[in-house]
């Protein structure tokens, strides 16, 4: 087998194993929450009989191991069960909201990733001089703002002072692509501000690191322009660390944007998860938890694989 293929297969297998372990951890974590769903649903009107009836109906009396394997079996066949609080089909609810999550994350990524890399390259080219300092100062300011502050600021600026966009960013099936873009404009701006600095600084640092190498000196002595040196010779060797930080930020854009979702009333997975945690709606919590874990694992796996492919020593095996 080709060594790269072998490495990739190894990574994928490891990822799947990790996902299985995560599913067990999620299940255990949910089990450890104080109170159970029956109690949370009945709330203050819980009588011992009502509790017993509801637990029986929801299968909460089965041993945990049985419930875990029942659940896992369901997940593998695409059956995530129904929400305990309102009886909605979980797979269906998640499907739509996951689409919205990915749409928002996608829009933010399409803008932030190229922008961060270009700014990183420019900062590296002018390291220590004013363009570098300006870029660093601006991006560090935006990343230092808590998300809700950035969100309120953007709301004030772009819906009140200059009413260009709408503060409530819900998207619905049947909306045109442009209408959706218009709706998510504000949360996308906030997310770009939040993730830009991290990726930009990693790009800058990785390139400056490579710039110390002897072959960069050779390239400079050949008389190549600084931008060509960076773009042609330094950047390809800095790809691995840059990709891994990009993937980390992409994962964040999918799983970590609850605050932004709440402020803009964006109907995606984060808010859905929080609501159901509050109500101890365990099947939903487990399902969303697993999806978030899968996103992290897949993106990290991709970063590894891209890092391997970008490494000439692995690309050209002896």
């Amino acid at each position: 087998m080709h060594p790269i293929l072998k490495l990739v297969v190894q990574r994928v297998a490891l990822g799947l194993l990790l996902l299985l372990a995560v599913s067990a951890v999620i299940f255990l974590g949910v089990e450890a929450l104080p109170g159970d769903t029956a109690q949370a649903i009945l709330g203050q009107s819980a009588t011992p009989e009502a509790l017993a009836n509801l637990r029986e109906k929801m299968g909460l009396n089965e041993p945990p191991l049985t419930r875990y394997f029942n659940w896992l079996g369901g997940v593998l066949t695409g059956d995530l069960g129904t929400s305990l609080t309102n009886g909605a089909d979980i797979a269906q609810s998640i499907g739509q909201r996951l689409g919205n999550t990915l749409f928002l994350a996608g829009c933010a990524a399409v803008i932030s990733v190229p922008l961060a890399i270009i700014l990183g390259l420019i900062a590296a080219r002018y390291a220590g001089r004013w363009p570098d300092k300006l870029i660093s100062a601006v991006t560090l300011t935006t990343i230092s703002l808590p998300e809700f502050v950035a969100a309120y600021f953007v709301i004030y600026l772009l819906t009140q002072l200059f009413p260009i966009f709408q503060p409530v960013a819900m998207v619905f099936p049947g909306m045109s692509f442009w209408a959706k873009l218009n709706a998510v404009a504000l949360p996308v701006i906030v997310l770009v501000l939040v993730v830009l600095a991290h990726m930009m600084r990693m790009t800058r640092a990785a390139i400056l690191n490579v710039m110390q190498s002897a072959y960069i000196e050779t390239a400079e002595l050949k008389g190549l322009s600084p931008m060509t040196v960076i773009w042609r010779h330094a950047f390809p060797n800095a790809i691995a660390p840059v990709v891994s930080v990009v993937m980390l930020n992409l994962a964040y854009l999918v799983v970590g944007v609850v605050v932004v979702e709440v402020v803009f009333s964006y109907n995606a997975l984060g808010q859905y998860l929080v609501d159901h945690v509050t109500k101890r709606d365990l099947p939903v919590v487990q399902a969303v938890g697993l999806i978030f874990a899968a996103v992290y694992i897949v993106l990290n796996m991709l970063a590894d694989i891209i890092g391997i492919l970008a490494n000439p020593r692995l690309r050209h095996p002896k």
Partner: protein
Amino acid sequence: MNDQLKQLASMTAKGLMSRREFNTRAAALGAGSVLSSSLLATAVRAQEPKKGGVLRAGMQGGESTNSLDPALAASEVPFAVSMTWGEMLVDVAPDNSIDYRIAEEISSNADATEWKFKIRQGVEFHDGKTVTAEDVVATLKRHTDEKSQSGALGIVQGISEMIAEGDMVTLKLASGNADLPYLMADYHLVIQPGGGFENPAAGIGAGAYKVAINEPGVRHVFERHPNYWDAANGAHADQVEIIVINDNTARTAALQAGQIHMMNRVDPKIVELLKSNSDITIEHAPGRGHYVFIMHVDKPPFDNNDLRMALKLAINRQEMLDKVLGGLGSVGNDFPINAAYPLFDASIPQREYDAAAAAEFYKKSGHDGSPIILRTAAGAFPGAIDAANLYAASANAAGIPLQIKLEPDDGYWSNVWNVEPFCASYWGGRPVQDQMYSTAYLSTADWNDTKFRNPHFDEVLIAARGELDETKRKAMYSELANILRDEGGLILPMFNDWVEARRVEVAGWTPDPNGELMNGKALIKCWIA
């Protein structure tokens, strides 16, 4: 002058002022009769409902776990959603009278143990079926079923027999209750075809609007019910929407940007700011909702009435009302009833902050001086943390070692409320005194959150239920109030107003003490002028 005149004209058009009074006051403002009569004509025209358009409300209080089953409605959005598609036997009107809906007439026997409801003919459900007496009985039956987990279980439990006969529903009670019609206005008791046994969350009712899109925690879209029986008095917009916007800032921004036409729960802190926006009108109605601190009277140290009295005297109600609610409310008097209730006794003296008396009672209680822990959370009620801190400061000034413990919002209602002996909480109020007392202060009440058990209190409360003589009844309620005020575990510093905001183009708004957004009817009764 013009603004004042316009306001007078609009009040006259709404029927809040007579035409004669308007003319006198307009003249006093120096307006000629031609100007004032043309203004009045414009105002009257603006009061005529306009059909069409889309009316949107942005609301706090919705979650993605919500269901359309009215039995499970527990927060603001599900309540407003039920009111939009559903219809009950009766509603409570803003002036506290009974507004007959599916029931057209109500009568009772002499001791209020047997009630007859005449069902209005020709009222149609959204699926085309006609509302019958059988549907009404089936609906009530579903809520008596322990398994339905209905929020109205406590209300329908007292009904011993339900009979549907022709267009008449007869309810027999175990003991007399003069307020039964008010109980039937409970928002859980939406009349559903076949009682909603088959599919309680189908959203099929006899209300003004049909459910078109139901995305819990996101939005609820409704279309006009073409055969709505009361179309002359409502269902003006072609389509109405409830958009769930739980974040205060986003909800306010959406109103300012015109994305929504009205919103509930305006933060009292920004009322003044919003008033400066000419596109927005603040609406507030004094309600029956109240913010409270509850002590469990069966647990030490709160089982000592002297200590309870010390804590009641150590709270500065006026300061709390001014600082926490910005004055949008009224001070409480340690019993859960205010002037918004019929048969309220206004002669009971107002309890004031009295550090010296509080210190005296505290000394008399023989408390060992260890900290008294008050638990609170941001979600206990809006401003609960500020209120608790103000309370601690005024109590400490009286020498009472009151300390605040902050609890997380998540799990507050299951881990702290009803569990810990002293915590912050709130009540939405009930349409009549009996229901408020029976829900929370009767010894056997499901939600007796102060663990108050007083046989004499129970006796008077149950006797008052069946008493049809108003004077006697008023005296009985006054006695109940005094017992609770002097012995209960309830510290009630303030009643909160419903504070809401709408855009100026929304017409037809009438403040309603019974609930938020005109008791959930704003989308039905208002129109875009």
